[in-house]
């Protein structure tokens, strides 16, 4: 089961909401019901991996009480590592194996990645680190902790949230729903569906033929940049659409999740981009990886090498973010690329990427830098990357417009223009869409939600669920 599926939206969610608000009256019963819903959702979505989620969560809860933080973190990382590496193909390291004269089976365990493991492991680790640093005491309610860890709107692909933020809300579920929160939830859900189904899916279908299908036969500057733009907006609308849906569904149950996107393509520099893109993940890495590494390095080597040490911390953090997406060269290079660019500002005082430049120019240059990063990110292998970059540089000519229009038809191009315009205007985020407090306006959003549900049968999986 996925949150963008008919089974979820037409059966699971309506029954869940009716039971939650109309049948159950006590806060405790509602908490238990949320836990049951979360278990049911995860079980239907991931099958036997539900046991892994439960056992890791129970273990994390227990080690927090025992103050065995190191063991808890290692256990969670080991679980994540096994599944990430199990999906990793040692062919990426053929050159090293040849140099060492080693002959090793190049495909290891080939385990499928459990749904949401990257996210719930990070929730566990964040919890353990917070308890260790006395931000809050360890939870004394196993049910509350399990519900937080497996909370179904966010279990697949976030947003990541602080334990205390969610636990406070789960402990104080109101008797009657807050109307403003419900309205907000409905708008988020409708917006998320529209972004995912009407925009992201259209662009994804175009990419399958235009970028990935027989891609090495396609050439031209126009093809390369167009494909990159389509990818950039497909990824953004897909992931932000999912996040809006997750936030909206959670709001319908009265629980507020943190935002995950804030018009990232309007950023005027890369630091700002990472404050606006996948906010919960980048905040998590900043808080639990970057700050400890940079503080540790500064303590060890002193403040006289501050710029260099921060560069190292940036590089390490961003490469880890890349590795989190997948243990393959494109993701690692992408992480390194962003780490390097983030470090360039303090290192070189490169004004052209600073906020003091004209805003639109800064946004354009930042967007260009982001696009180059996406070109690395989307390449499945080095030959593809080489082919794409040589075309981006125009080394194979402009390309034939007629051929390009065969793969990117007028509807796709129109959708791309819509996506770009919405991004540029800032109206793409659900929280930024002006609310017309009229019933007919909400009725229109209800209609859009239905039109999106009609197209769910051919929907493509949310891309970040795959990480």
């Amino acid at each position: 089961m996925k949150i963008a599926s008919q089974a979820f939206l037409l059966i699971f969610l309506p029954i869940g909401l009716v039971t939650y608000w109309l049948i159950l009256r006590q806060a405790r019963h509602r908490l238990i019901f949320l836990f049951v819903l979360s278990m049911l959702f995860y079980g239907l979505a991931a099958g036997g991996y539900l046991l892994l989620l439960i056992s890791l969560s129970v273990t994390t809860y227990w080690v927090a009480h025992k103050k065995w933080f190191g063991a808890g973190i290692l256990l969670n990382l080991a679980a994540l590592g096994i599944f990430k590496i199990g999906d990793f193909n040692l062919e990426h390291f053929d050159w090293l194996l040849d140099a060492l004269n080693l002959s090793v089976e190049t495909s290891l365990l080939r385990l499928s990645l459990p749904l949401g493991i990257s996210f719930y492991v990070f929730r566990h680790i964040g919890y353990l680190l917070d308890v260790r640093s006395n931000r809050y005491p360890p939870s004394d309610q196993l049910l509350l902790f399990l519900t937080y860890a497996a909370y179904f709107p966010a279990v697949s692909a976030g947003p990541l949230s602080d334990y205390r933020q969610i636990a406070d809300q789960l402990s104080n579920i109101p008797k009657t729903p807050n109307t403003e929160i419900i309205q907000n939830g409905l708008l988020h859900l409708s917006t998320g569906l529209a972004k995912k189904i009407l925009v992201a899916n259209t662009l994804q279908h175009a990419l399958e033929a235009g970028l990935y299908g027989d891609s090495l036969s396609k050439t031209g500057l126009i093809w390369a940049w167009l494909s990159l733009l389509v990818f950039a907006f497909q990824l953004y609308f897909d992931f932000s659409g999912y996040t809006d849906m997750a936030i909206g569904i959670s709001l319908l149950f009265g629980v507020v999740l943190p935002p995950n996107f804030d018009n990232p393509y309007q950023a005027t520099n890369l630091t700002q981009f990472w404050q606006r893109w996948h906010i919960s993940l980048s905040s998590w890495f900043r808080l639990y990886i970057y700050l400890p590494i940079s503080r540790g390095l500064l303590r060890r080597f002193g403040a006289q090498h501050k710029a260099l040490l921060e560069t190292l911390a940036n590089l390490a953090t961003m490469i880890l973010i890349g590795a989190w997406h997948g243990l393959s060269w494109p993701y690692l290079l992408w992480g390194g690329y962003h780490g390097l660019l983030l470090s360039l500002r303090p290192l070189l005082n490169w004004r052209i990427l600073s906020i003091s430049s004209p805003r639109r120019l800064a946004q354009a240059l930042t967007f260009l830098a982001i696009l180059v990063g996406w070109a690395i990110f989307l390449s499945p292998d080095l030959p593809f990357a080489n082919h794409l970059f040589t075309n981006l540089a125009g080394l194979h000519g402009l390309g034939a417009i007629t051929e390009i229009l065969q793969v990117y038809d007028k509807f796709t191009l129109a959708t791309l223009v819509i996506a770009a315009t919405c991004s540029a205007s800032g109206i793409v985020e659900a929280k930024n869409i002006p609310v017309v407090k009229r019933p007919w306006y909400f009725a229109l959003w209800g209609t859009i939600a239905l039109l999106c549900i009609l197209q769910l049968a051919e929907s493509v999986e949310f891309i970040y669920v795959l990480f």
Partner: protein
Amino acid sequence: MQESCSLGKLRCLAVRLILVGLLTLILWLGNKQVSPLVSTYLDQSTQPVGTLSNLMRMASTSLYIMILLIAQSHLWASKLLSKARQTSSCAGNFKKTSSQVHPDQLTQGWITGLLLASGFVASLIVYGNPRGMYPTHFFSPRWLLVRPIKIEAYTALEKSPDVVVLGSSRAFTIAPSYIYETLGYTAFNASVEGMLPYELPVFFRFLTDQRDNNLPKVLLIEAPPYLADEISTQRIPSSLLPYLPVTETLHFVYDRYTGLFDLEHLAESIFSILRTAEANVDWTFQEDGKGILPPTTQAGLNQSLEQAIANGPPHCQFPTFRTQSHYQELARLAAKHQISLVFVLTPYHPHYYAAHMEVGSPFDICKTRAMEWLANFAGQYTNIWVLDFSLLERIQGIENEQGFYDHQHITEANANLLINAAADTLRQAYQAALDLRNR
């Protein structure tokens, strides 16, 4: 001041009435003018249903943009209006400002929009009923729906036949009359389009429920074990509901519920309504269940083969646990009712076979494993046989348009040759069933 306020209100009312009138006129004109245009456009389109669904996708995207524009315009208008209110003497006379709309009304508005749109879409789908999933029959279904035809015909039989043919459209042309001529056994062809493994026990229960004391002796089953492990109940008629296990019954209800929220289904429905479309089928069926298709030409067969070869080999997978459980259930029912089972693979056209199924090809490797499983499975029972006639030469069949309609559908001529080749096994199976009953 009072007068100018009244004039303002009248003006508002007049504007609203004019807008409503314009909208009504547009809808009426649209219906009168646009429907024929849409019909003509669809006539000229090679894939009209696809065109319709694409149009609806575009309309959905346009509505999304329109809503964003409305929201943005409203924001600008509100800013202008709040400035105007500060200077206007009619400020107190403005009726429903946004702050005076009850919050619950907004949620109700969303739900109303969703329900109205859902109701409209669901009504269109049920009215058009292009897939025959609902009990309305205003238009012919666009799919080939053979199950209700065969169920009705079988139920109308006075007596259970000795042999019942089950399976997919690949078995349509197996002639009960030829089985009777050759072997002296009465027969009925109960094969249906796209029969899936889970349907075998379902149809078995249906067949054995008809006449308690007089059951078929042999089931001749064309159902390769390497088929996809799907459970799709869209084509299952409600008359088979009593024979579905609980999980498939839930699937049945689920398919019909979600079928009301499917864009392709809606497009098919609109197409059926606009065009009063005829069923997209050529097959007709006799009372004994045998299927008849207009003969093809050699050129037509060649074209069909080219297309099929270009599309690649058929899907093949080793029988999953679920598929195996369906076969096991079938065997259990067969033992219980003392009925013999003869599994048969019908021939593929030799050109198609050579292109995708030759020894060592991926399909062949998969098929061989699946058939080995089936053979081992059959070996555990005394009343189950397996016949592999996927190679035309095994039935000494006809290769040209006299023997094939396309790469996998055989004519009655080849079906008769298949019966000849299977005759001995069918006799053994018949005798085995009699022996079981005489014990």
